[in-house]
């Protein structure tokens, strides 16, 4: 029952998605929002401002350096989480006999 209901709901959702996709700007359209905000500024000023021949690097490491810092923090957190979940003690705990002595 639930599965049939899900299938019935998927059809209108698919139609809506198709209609939305038809409204998307064409690939490489220079007038689309992605190319009219900060992208022209980066293309015109990245080389003299950052000295990078590669604009991707200029954006990733310089204009959006804070983002990259966040990415590194995510990786760091993942490593520490793995250590905390899977890691064990460096040394086995001291035997109890010593406490009693």
């Amino acid at each position, binding site marked *: 029952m639930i599965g049939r209901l899900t299938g019935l709901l998927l059809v209108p959702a698919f139609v809506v998605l198709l209609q939305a996709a038809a409204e998307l700007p064409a690939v490489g359209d220079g007038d689309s929002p992605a190319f009219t905000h900060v992208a022209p500024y980066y293309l015109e000023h990245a080389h003299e401002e950052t000295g990078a021949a590669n604009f991707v*690097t200029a954006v990733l490491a310089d204009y959006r350096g804070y983002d990259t810092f966040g990415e590194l923090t995510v990786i760091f957190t993942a490593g520490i989480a793995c250590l905390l979940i899977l890691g064990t003690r460096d040394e086995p705990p001291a035997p109890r006999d010593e406490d009693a002595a």
Partner: protein
Amino acid sequence: MRSKFGSPVLDASARLLAPFMWLFAAYVLVHGHDSPGGGFQAGVILAASIIMLRLVRGEASPPGLTSRGALTFACAGPLLYGGIGIVSVLSGGNFLDYGELPLPMDPVQIRVLGTLGIETGVMIGVTGVLVLIFDVLAPWDDGTV
């Protein structure tokens, strides 16, 4: 599990491969400013070489990284990155505004160096985390990391 299982052939191959992997990691790091590449990719290549040495030669291989060293690397990377950001704040700029770093050079040159600095931090951090994850997944035979 982390005892070496290498045969002389594997051992010789790993010895031959490792220096070129380090060289390639350095190339990817330094050249990342002008071509695809950068700290993340260089860190992965470096970690791959270290894990290869661990698998073939065991933990005791001299150019390798101990688990504690890997943890230090993992912490030093974000510290270096954030440190560069803090230094640029203390020199009167915004956070991660490399142009304000106190170096006696042209601002554009300083930005190039600052970018290289943060990419080095990324490389160190990624290398440390990957080796650390390998170490906790493949602990010593007695269960210690």
